[in-house]
C-alpha cells in the first residue's frame, strides 16, 4: 500500500468528510482504531460479565438462571442493529455507488449472523429450564430465526456471483428487503401473543428491571458494540486488500 499524504488533504479550506469513503484513506485509519476497540471490548465485556454474574442480585422469579440475560439480550440487540446497519450501508452503496459502503455491508454480515446465532442458542438454553421447551414456533423466535436465514442468504448470494459489483448490488437488494424483518422481530411480542415475554428495556417505558441488572446489560452491550466495530474493521481491511490486489493484478496485464 502506498502511503497517502493525509496532511495535504486536510489543508484544503473545507474539511472533506468524503475522503474517508476512499479505501486508501480508510485503510490506515481503521488500522489505528482496531486495537483500541478490541481493548475496550475486552475490558467492558469482562466488567459486564462481572456485574452480571457476581454483582447483580438473584431474580425473584427465575433465581440464578436469569443471568444468561446478560449475554442473550445484548446479542439479540446487536443481531437486529447490525442488520439495519448492514442494510443502510448496502443502500448507500447502491445510491452513491460507493465501493467502501458495499465492503462495509459485506463485513458486517458475519458478525450480525454470529450475534443472531448467539441470541438463538442462549435463548434456547434459557427456554428449557424457564418455559419448559428448547424451542417454540412463536412470532418472536420464528422471526429471529428468519433473521439468521437472511444473513446467511446475504453472504451466500454474494459468494454465488463471481462478478463483485453484480454480487454487491444483488445482495444489497436482499439486505434492504430483509430489513423489514427487524421491526417485525422487535414488535412481535406486542403485535401477537407469544410465549416470549415483552421488552424489559425500551425507549418508551422505564426499564422493568433492577438498576444493577440494567447496568450490567448496558455495559455488555457497549462491549459488544466495540467488539463489532473491531472485527468489522478488520474484515473491511481484508476486503480492501483482497479486492485491490485483484485490481492490481488486472492492471499489470
Amino acid at each position, binding site marked *: 500500500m502506498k502511503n497517502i499524504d493525509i496532511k495535504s488533504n486536510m489543508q484544503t479550506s473545507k474539511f472533506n468528510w468524503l475522503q474517508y469513503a476512499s479505501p486508501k484513506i480508510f485503510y490506515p485509519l481503521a488500522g489505528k482504531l482496531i486495537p483500541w476497540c478490541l481493548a475496550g471490548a475486552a475490558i467492558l465485556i469482562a466488567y459486564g460479565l462481572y456485574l452480571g454474574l457476581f454483582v447483580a*442480585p*438473584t*431474580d*425473584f*422469579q*427465575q433465581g440464578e*438462571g*436469569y443471568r444468561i*440475560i446478560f449475554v442473550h439480550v445484548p446479542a439479540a440487540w446487536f443481531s437486529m442493529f447490525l442488520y439495519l446497519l448492514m442494510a443502510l450501508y448496502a*443502500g448507500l452503496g*447502491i*445510491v*452513491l*455507488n460507493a465501493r467502501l459502503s458495499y465492503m462495509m455491508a459485506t463485513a458486517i454480515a458475519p458478525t450480525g449472523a454470529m450475534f443472531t446465532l448467539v441470541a438463538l442458542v442462549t435463548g434456547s438454553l434459557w427456554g428449557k*429450564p*424457564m*418455559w*419448559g*421447551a428448547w424451542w*417454540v*414456533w*412463536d*412470532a418472536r423466535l420464528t422471526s429471529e430465526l428468519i433473521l439468521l436465514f437472511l444473513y446467511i442468504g446475504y453472504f451466500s448470494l454474494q459468494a454465488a456471483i463471481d462478478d463483485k459489483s453484480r454480487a454487491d448490488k444483488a445482495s444489497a437488494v436482499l439486505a*434492504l*428487503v430483509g*430489513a*423489514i424483518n427487524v421491526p*417485525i422481530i422487535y414488535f412481535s411480542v406486542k*403485535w*401477537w*401473543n*407469544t*410465549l416470549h*415475554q*415483552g*421488552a*424489559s428495556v425500551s425507549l418508551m417505558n422505564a426499564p*422493568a*428491571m*433492577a438498576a444493577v*441488572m440494567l447496568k450490567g446489560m448496558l455495559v455488555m452491550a457497549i462491549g459488544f458494540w466495540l467488539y463489532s466495530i473491531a472485527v468489522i474493521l478488520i474484515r473491511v481491511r481484508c476486503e480492501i486488500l483482497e479486492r485491490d490486489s485483484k485490481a492490481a493484478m488486472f492492471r499489470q496485464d
Partner: protein
Amino acid sequence: MKARHKRFGLIAAGLILLVIATVLITKSFRSNLVFFFTPTQVEKGEAPKTGSFRIGGLVENGSLKRLPDGLHVQFRVTDTAKTMQVVYKGILPDLFKEGKGVVAEGKLGTNGVFEADQVLAKHDENYMPPEAAAALKAAQENKAKGKVI
C-alpha cells in the same frame, strides 16, 4: 436530477411499498399468528374444533391439584373472564406457579376438559431481587387494604 438522486428515489419508493405490503400482510395474519388462545376465545369458538392447539392465561389460584393416580395434575387456566379445566401428565416447568402465566398445548376433550401434552410457563418481563419483589407485594397489599377501609 443526478443519477444517484434517481437511485435514492427508487430505493425509497421500493422500501415504502415494501412497508405497506408488510403492514397489510401482518394485519391479515394477525388472527392466524397467535401462539395461544385465551379461554374466552375458546368459549367463543375461535380455537380449532379438531386437532391440537394451545391455550394461555394465568393458573388460577388454588386450582392446582395432583390426581390420586399420582401422575396427572389438574389446574384451571383463567384470563380473568373465563376459566378452563386442564389435565396434564408430565413434569411441570420450574416457573409453573399458581397466579403465573401458562401456555398449554393439547386437545379439548368431549367433557370440556383440556387435555394437555405440553405445559409451558410464560413469565413476564420484570426482573428484580426477591426483596424488591416482596416490598412491592407488601406495598400493593397495603394499598388494597387502604381501599377497603
